[in-house]
């Protein structure tokens, strides 16, 4: 049956779906909304309650999240760059807090990977300013010093080995973070409701 006049309840529902599909390519969003519109039109028999059809589809935000998690998971698995993974984790958050911990952890992982790599390279140019120092207090992480020496009372570990060790640690952390991000994304994809 044809429905020439759009129903305000249907439009509100579809608007909410579309609003929650943000981050997905526009043509994909259009197609999803078109298919849902077609489903609703087909599903509602003459004189029947449109609200019942919308209830059967479920919460619009939940529905959009199902689409989004599949879409971002596919993109993340294809690309796997830090930006794509972090963006996917951002989109997969449920509400403000749920799912924020993996995002923060991945961001921290990438930041440390970058910092370790950058410190290893910096060591080549300023060997006396960058390194790993060990002293009575504690092991000091890679740090820059102004006066060209480590903290007082400490001795430097690794020396030039800091360059390959830092690079290796950075690369390792990068891949670990990537695997963690992809694992979480796949996990979110697997926990769709029935």
């Amino acid at each position, binding site marked *: 049956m*044809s*429905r020439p006049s759009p129903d305000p309840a249907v439009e509100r529902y579809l608007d909410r779906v579309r609003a929650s599909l943000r981050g997905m390519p526009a043509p994909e969003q259009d197609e999803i909304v078109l298919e849902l519109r*077609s489903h609703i039109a087909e599903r509602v028999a003459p004189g029947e309650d449109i609200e019942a059809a919308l*209830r059967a589809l*479920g919460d619009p935000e939940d529905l959009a999240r199902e689409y989004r998690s*599949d879409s971002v998971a596919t993109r993340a698995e294809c690309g796997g760059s830090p930006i794509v993974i972090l963006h996917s984790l951002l989109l997969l958050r449920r509400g403000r807090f749920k799912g924020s911990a993996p995002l923060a952890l991945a961001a921290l992982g990438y930041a440390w990977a970058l910092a370790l790599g950058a410190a290893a390279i910096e060591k080549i140019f300023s060997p006396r300013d960058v390194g790993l120092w060990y002293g009575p207090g504690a092991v000091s992480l890679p740090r820059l010093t102004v006066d060209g020496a480590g903290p007082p009372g400490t001795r430097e570990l690794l020396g030039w080995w800091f360059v390959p060790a830092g690079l290796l640690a950075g690369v390792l952390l990068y891949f670990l973070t990537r695997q963690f991000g992809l694992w979480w994304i796949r996990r979110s994809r697997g926990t769709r*409701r*029935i």
Partner: protein
Amino acid sequence: MSSVPERNPPAADPVDKWEVQLRKGCLELAILGTLWTGRQYGLEILRGLERDSELVLSEGTVYPLLARLKNDGLLESEWVEADAGHPRKYYRLTPSGRRRAVRMARLWSRFSASLGGLLAPLIKEGPRS
């Protein structure tokens, strides 16, 4: 018109949780199986699943799953202008989807037969409730 399937209440019982997982795991095969004989559109697939299987599912679940199966290259879709006055999005199995459906169906059949044999005494002799 069939009744509106309600969303499942939160599954607190471990057996209920297990059942939800089981259904979830079978839904993909059920959709591939539904499309084995030819193209169908979303609501048709949904009605078929409601009729032929006990996979009671919220209507909202099937569409994102169809989108994923399409992204995975197992399904292809086309829009067809229907007499109903609105276009319908039809899905059909791709060759890779057909292969996947056969592999999954064989695996399922083997699995359920062996488990069925193992569980037959339990079902016969276990308490009624």
